[in-house]
């Protein structure tokens, strides 16, 4: 880039963001020049320091202890509700008060306490105020000793969280029905339960300038492509933001094209789906307080795959995937557009009987077909939006009122034709055939795009719309992997698990698309079938 271009860009930025520069607060202290403060040695000073830092919160409690066998006073400090107080009483307070062991004051008393007196499973010694504050906010307890400028962190955090239950958004008939929850610890355990491989890596990181949420980047070492893992970590590290609430938000933040409507990462609550993705060489990202994992790279085909495809016969799986992807997807996007094309440009594609039926059903309707379709589609989307966010008890009633009464009333009031109501109803149902709901908004928006093309160019317009959508999707990439990989013919072997689900024997290797290190997932040659017993089966 030339200097002139740089100057022009900076001028443009100055013009656009001048007001922001005034509003922005001075940047925080640079890490290089930051001096880490040592913890005060006096208990009262430590108490005062913590109260001052956290703004004297009501849930911050201190407990002073004077063990009879020891000369020093001790102070326990924690945030109420975040720690396991039972464990604190039983394994820290009680042993301290009842100990009869006289510890040598010349040795490091805190380490000696951790090793000999208190009976918690995990502890760590810290020296700085920043560490103390961070550990406190993470829900751990601190044990201070009078006269020492260090403290003992007792890892006894216990957040309230849901119990593991069935994922609401990804229900299946067959297969495991346990889903991730908002607790990172539980999610980590669930994943380890599925993959008991020593090479499963769960790298922890922090995200959020103010939230400091824990993030786990999960992958299988030896399968996942290392540069891609590094790229994911780098992206998360470079995200300098106050708070990220959910992995879905993280997914949006990590997207490079802000105008893109297609999800470039797959969020899933299902444990089997995420562990299968890890085994394909993908990377899963878990965020504290988020009940789902974000899987990257994600491909277009992923949003039409369900775990059940792999729990049933390949023939059945192909048939149902074909139904979802070809009929479900295409009808959602194109059916209203075809209605417009056939009514606006009756060029003899469809039979004369059907054209006459359509004309008869439109008799007396004041709107042209395009407006009729747009009116009904907007109404449908409003009903869908409303029913998604209403309480369940009211949601059903809204659907009935919207679907049946409004539809019938619209026909009687000559606002829409009977065929239009059928088209809208079919569109509403086919909307839901997508296996991962993250793709649904894109599908809902695209049907308007197709309608507009059909309004101008009829059936040919639908082809133009399809071409442009396909080209756009074809230009997308998720962490360097083309979004249409597996569906396009870059690697022929990968096409065996797209719309067509082939026998597992043809899927003995991991998808080449992900450039995995260890490519084989099943050595089918080692499989010894007992032919006689199989005959009986």
């Amino acid at each position, binding site marked *: 880039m030339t200097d002139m271009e740089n100057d022009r860009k900076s001028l443009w930025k100055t013009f656009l963001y001048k007001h922001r520069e005034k509003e922005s607060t001075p940047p925080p202290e640079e890490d290089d020049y930051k001096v880490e403060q040592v913890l005060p040695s006096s208990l009262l000073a430590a108490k005062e320091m913590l109260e001052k830092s956290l703004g004297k919160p009501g849930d911050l409690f201190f407990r002073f202890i004077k063990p009879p066998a020891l000369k020093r006073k001790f102070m326990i400090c924690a945030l109420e509700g975040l720690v396991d107080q039972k464990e604190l009483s039983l394994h820290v307070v009680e042993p301290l008060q009842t100990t009869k062991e006289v510890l040598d004051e010349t040795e490091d008393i805190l380490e000696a306490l951790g090793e000999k007196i208190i009976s918690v499973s995990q502890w760590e010694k810290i020296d700085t105020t920043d560490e103390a504050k961070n550990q406190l906010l993470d829900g751990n307890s601190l044990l201070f000793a009078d006269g020492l400028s260090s403290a003992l962190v007792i890892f006894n955090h216990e957040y309230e969280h849901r119990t593991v239950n069935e994922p609401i958004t990804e229900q299946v008939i067959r297969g495991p029905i346990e889903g991730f929850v908002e607790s990172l610890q539980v999610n980590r355990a669930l994943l380890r339960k599925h993959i008991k491989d020593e090479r499963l890596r769960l790298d922890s990181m922090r995200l959020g300038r103010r939230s400091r949420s824990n993030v786990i980047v999960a992958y299988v070492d030896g399968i996942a492509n290392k540069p891609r893992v590094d790229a994911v970590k780098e992206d998360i590290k470079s995200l300098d933001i106050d708070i990220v609430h959910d992995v879905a938000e993280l997914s949006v933040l990590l997207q490079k094209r802000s105008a893109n409507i297609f999800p470039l990462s797959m969020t899933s609550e299902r444990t089997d789906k995420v562990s299968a993705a890890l085994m394909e060489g993908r990377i899963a990202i878990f965020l504290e307080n988020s009940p789902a994992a974000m899987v990257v790279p994600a491909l277009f085909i992923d949003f039409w795959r369900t775990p059940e495809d792999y729990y049933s016969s390949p023939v059945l799986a192909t048939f149902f995937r074909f139904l979802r992807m070809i009929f479900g997807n295409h009808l959602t996007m194109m059916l209203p557009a075809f209605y417009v094309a056939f009514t606006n440009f009756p060029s003899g594609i469809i039979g004369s009987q059907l054209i006459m039926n359509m004309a008869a059903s439109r008799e007396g309707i004041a709107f042209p077909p395009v407006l009729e379709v747009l009116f009904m589609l907007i109404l449908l989307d409003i009903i869908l939006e409303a029913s998604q966010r209403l309480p369940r008890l009211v949601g059903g009633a809204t659907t009935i009122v919207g679907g049946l009464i409004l539809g019938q009333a619209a026909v009687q009031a000559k606002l829409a034709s009977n065929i239009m109501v059928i088209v809208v109803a079919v569109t509403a149902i086919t909307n839901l055939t997508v296996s991962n709901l993250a793709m649904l908004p894109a599908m809902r928006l695209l049907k308007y795009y197709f309608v507009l093309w059909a309004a101008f160019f009829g059936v040919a317009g639908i082809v133009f719309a399809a071409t442009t959508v396909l080209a*756009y999707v074809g230009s997308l990439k998720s962490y360097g992997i083309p979004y249409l990989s597996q569906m396009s013919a870059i690697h022929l072997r990968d096409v065996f698990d797209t719309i067509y689900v082939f026998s597992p024997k043809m899927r003995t290797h991991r998808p080449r698309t992900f450039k995995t290190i260890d490519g084989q997932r099943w050595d089918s040659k080692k499989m010894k079938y007992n032919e006689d017993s199989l005959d009986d089966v």
Partner: protein
Amino acid sequence: MYSEKISMLQIGLLMASFFVAGAGLYYNGFLFQTVDYNPFVPLFSGLLLSFIPAGLAAWLCARYPRKNILTMANELVGPFFGFLIVFPLVVAHFTLPLAISRIASELIVDVYLEQTPPWAMTVVLLSISCWIATLGTEAVARTNDEHLVIIFPLTMIMFLLSFSDIRPELTRPYLQVDFSYWIQPEFYGSLLLFLSFTIVLFLNNSISHSTKIYRMIFGLKFIGAIYLFITAYMILGTLGMEMAATFDQPLKVKMTTLRETVFIERIDIFLVLLWLFPTVTSKAVLIVTGARALGQWMSLPDYRRLVIIYYLVIITLSPLMLPFQHAKRTLLYLGPIWMLYLTLILLILAVASLWKNPQKASPRR
């Protein structure tokens, strides 16, 4: 120079889209006008004739893996002569989309949109192709993959449905011992369809396994020939030779004269829609290869801006093709000139390559 990567299979599918689009748009029109009885002999003559430049191209691509024709010409005959001999090919790549768009728009307007001016449709088709070309070679290839992977089976179904209208006696005799087609310009115009392999020459630097590219080039030629044979057979079997030879786009006529059914009046009419996909992508690949070549000569880090310039120029020039006959004549002359010129420069490059006897690069896996 450009780091885009496409597989050998994708190149094959791009070549296939030329066959699918060309068969629907212009090939059969030219072919049926070359003979009096049936066109199968000129079809296979054209195929055999095209093996000469195709073989040379395959040999050069295998000899210079990861080098496109620009780099090859640059190395073998020097930068100046290299530019001089390759530039006409780039011009051909840039000219063809305009003529194809005009012919395709004729088809759409005739079949679907009787009141739309063909020029407007030409602009729409060019706009879509150029927009796809701005997304880059990889995006063009992937779009084309999807079209062919999903749509090609549908095309086959449509063909099967059409067979009920075919009267085999109209297609006989299969072998016609009359070689007068060799002096017909339409025969040479039809050769244009067999030149799809030129995209390999321009994209050889982006293909993996290019030492085995001959398999793809020749394989696709055979499959393409079979496809052309089927379409020609369908037309002959429905319309008969006399009627078919009077139309510029006989496949379109075949579709519009089918028997009525109950629900779908003319089910084969959907075939036109299916042709639109490969037509758009084949134009996009011609544009993108042309822009890449220009970008390489101009050492541009991003060639896509050239596509936008090309778009503005081609839209301005599009009224040139307003009469359908101009577009048809362009193809009629472009076919033989392109084939002759391509054969000539490939021969020059092959001779220069053998003359200089460069170290053959080790084959890559």
